[in-house]
């Protein structure tokens, strides 16, 4: 399992990356989760963070380093990341429930209160999610961010939701 073959980072690659917060921090509440494991020239996450919680520095190919203690979970970095590689996870959202936020640039958008199939990094449905809110302010520049409440045990897996209006595809998830 590796990002170069699977197209998404493995657990190990994420754990090794400087943008992934600790379990203990995630248990305390909303925090950015940066899944950027490849050195590409990019730093808008650093520029946008009002709390100085994300450092890229020079050269700008450095992987973003998250100081999870400074992160307030505001989520501004989610829409600004051109790679859509930043998520918001709050494992203290409700008893047995986590909140997961992710960029979602598809139409139609879901609405708060709807129940939708929550998907993992491979696009497989792993749970039913409840849409808590959809942030689509002008600051997001047409990158809406969807927040789903999902069962706590899939909080580290859920990273999107099924595109709507799509037909079932044979061979999906292979």
């Amino acid at each position, binding site marked *: 399992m590796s*990002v170069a*073959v699977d197209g998404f980072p493995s657990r190990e690659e994420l754990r090794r990356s400087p943008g992934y917060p600790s379990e203990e921090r995630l248990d305390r509440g909303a925090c950015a989760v940066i899944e950027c494991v490849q050195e590409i*020239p990019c730093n808008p996450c650093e520029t946008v963070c009002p709390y100085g919680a994300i450092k890229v520095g020079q050269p*700008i*190919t450095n992987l973003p380093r998250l100081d999870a203690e400074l992160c307030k979970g505001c989520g501004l970095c989610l829409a600004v990341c*051109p*790679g859509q590689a930043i998520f918001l996870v709050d494992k203290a959202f409700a008893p047995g429930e986590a909140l997961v936020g992710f960029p979602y640039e598809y139409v139609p958008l879901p609405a708060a209160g709807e129940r939708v199939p929550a998907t993992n990094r491979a696009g497989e449905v792993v749970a039913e999610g409840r849409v808590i809110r959809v942030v689509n302010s002008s600051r997001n*520049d047409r990158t809406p961010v969807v927040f789903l409440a999902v069962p706590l045990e899939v909080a580290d897996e859920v990273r999107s939701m099924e595109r709507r209006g799509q037909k079932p595809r044979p061979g999906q998830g292979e």
Partner: protein
Amino acid sequence: MTRSDVTIIGAGPAGLAAAIEAARAGAKVVLVDENARPGGQLFKQIHKFFGSREHFAGTRGIDLARKLCQEAQELGVQLVLDTAAFAIYDGRIVAGTTPKGTVQIESERIILATGAMENTFSFKGWTKPGVMGAGAAQTMINLHRVLPGSRILMVGSGNVGLIVTYQLLQAGADVVAVIEALPKIGGYAVHAAKVRRAGVPILTSHTVLEAKGEPEVSSAVICQLDDFKPVAGTEREVEVDTVCLAVGLTPLAELAWMAGCQCEYLPALGGFVPVHDERMETTVKGIFVAGDVTGVEEASTAIEEGRLAGIAAAASLGLLSPDEAEERMTAAWERLAALRMGPFGEGRQAAKEQLMKVGKAG
């Protein structure tokens, strides 16, 4: 005959940036493009760009195109559209063909910003309707708002293949798979992760053997590769109505060849590219290059090269003091260097250095 200080061929990101810099320095600039409007491929780049603030990171290509076009207009750049430049005579006359006949533009300096063309490759059935370049599909969905098909096979996992896959999904199509001949994904992991999250499989060590259907594509046969050779018994047929080819780009260097510019074969830059120096000047004095024509990269690098060429062309006409030109070019080179770092940029950086070394030796 139209006359100008600087004539730029190609109004994509490199040409627009060159026009802006040269015009800002006070040059009379003519910008020639074969399309009906300037912007090149930028208008179909609806995604947010990488980089840092000075590279317009986080800005969508389409918005950047609008900004650059507006800037060029405000600076008085003369646009000559619907005009395909087909020749350069005496290193100073650009000839173009328009729907109304031919035009000639005489100028002191010429900047070639002609970009690149999509590669293709042949397989059984590849001429059937439904087989197209990924860039063509991107033009259809993002410029003309027409879906080329509803079930698509993407061949090639470089950034173009991955980005167009994502945009086809956004446009409402299903992408059945992205296949890649190499044993690993070619493009940025973040682009791959976006399409994987949307449920699109990426099959490495795979190729397409045949597009089937009469008259248009109704399925494609794909198979596994071992060391680039098809593995017998792994063939399978996937039901698709469109096969998109995202197998690289080739610099459009014909005008440079014709003008007598020395070209060098550098695979990391996409093939034969005109040799240039640090001022983006080719081996033919007065002819400059910028953007994909001198090495296939990205819009953000094309913009910086365009700035360099525009500044250098203006400076060579005495419109900028050497110090001023030096200062602006150093800043552009620093921005370029930042974009050519890391595992994806290093190869291009090395090839560019080689290209400029050849320029010096010549």
